[in-house]
């Protein structure tokens, strides 16, 4: 049976650096993408990502067993991203400002898929920040609605609504990608 995140975090908090390596390996990629998508194209993505992990390291003693590690990690990340939005004033981008791709038919399936993925990323980058955040916490963080609500400090129903709107807008922008 694999060691739980919480066990690893406890060991790290007690001074075991190897435990941190194992924990880091589990979350490095999804957390990196969570940050990257939140500020698509922004030059500070790497800096933000690194800063989030340093905050985790510094706040290790604030983490108390049996608090689930994953929502705790993403709460730190979310707060850091919100700080970034506030500082850069980039929180209110809207999909309505986006020039929707015309969806011209592509010959090759792979090229078509690649195009859809690229469009997806672009659409995601233009979603309202709170909707994008909810979507990424679900997809990258693997968090439940309740956990997202806890991380973002909102109600479960609000999260549900944000996700519904996010998915609706993505669907609209990705017409032709479901065949």
């Amino acid at each position: 049976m694999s060691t739980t995140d919480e066990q690893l975090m406890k060991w790290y908090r007690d001074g075991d650096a190897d435990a941190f390596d194992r924990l880091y390996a589990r979350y490095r990629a999804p957390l990196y993408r969570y940050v990257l998508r939140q500020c698509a194209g922004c030059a500070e993505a790497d800096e933000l990502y690194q800063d989030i992990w340093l905050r985790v390291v510094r706040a290790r003693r604030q983490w108390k067993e049996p608090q689930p590690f994953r929502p705790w990690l993403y709460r730190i990340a979310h707060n850091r991203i919100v700080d970034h939005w506030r500082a850069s004033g980039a929180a209110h981008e809207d999909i309505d400002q986006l020039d929707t791709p015309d969806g011209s038919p592509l010959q090759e399936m792979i090229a078509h898929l690649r195009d859809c993925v690229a469009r997806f990323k672009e659409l995601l980058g233009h979603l309202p920040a709170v909707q994008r955040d909810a979507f990424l916490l679900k997809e990258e963080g693997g968090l439940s609605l309740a956990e997202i609500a806890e991380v973002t400090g909102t109600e479960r129903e609000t999260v549900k609504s944000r996700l519904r709107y996010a998915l609706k807008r993505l669907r609209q922008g990705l017409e032709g990608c479901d065949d």
Partner: protein
Amino acid sequence: MTDPQKPQPDEVEDLLLSALYHQGANEEPSPEMDNAIREQARKVARRRRWFALPRLAVTMVLLLGVGVALRVFDLAPPERAVVEFEMPEDQEAAIPRPAPSTANGARSDEVTLEQLPTQPALQSAAPQVRKKSARESLEQRMFERANRQPGESSEPVCVGDVPPADAGPSEWLRRIRDLRQAGEQARAACLQDLYRERFSEADQIKPQTIRE
């Protein structure tokens, strides 16, 4: 009717969206960044271990020190401070006494005004009841002490110095003072102990020293 097991069209589309998203979700942090973060976390963990060692050592030394000190000096708690005092005769009468129970066992709110004992009667009855039980207890203890085998107890005998049963605190204190003046410190101390047992805290006379 819809089958609850069968996914709804929206759910299918959401799953497709999720799959599409993960098709393109393959970015990862650079190895340099990974190393920088791991190194930072390692540094902090090492620092914590170094901090923890002296703290543990200091705690152990302190505990050991306290244990050794207790053994070497055999520290005992300080003796209880003794406050000695004397009460003038006229104050003795003013000592509050517990209220007596009625003779027929009736509740106090059922007693008529005529049945109530007069104030002087109350004052004389209350001490008798209280003093009787205290006296019995004292006599029992004295009897036990008097019947101890020689060498069983090193406590000096002062039974002969005990005032009569109806004597007030001032009589006790006078005897204690007399014994002290006569140089009978051990008997005086013994009688003082009995005095404390005889009279409750509330009854003991408030400060006026009986020291010579």
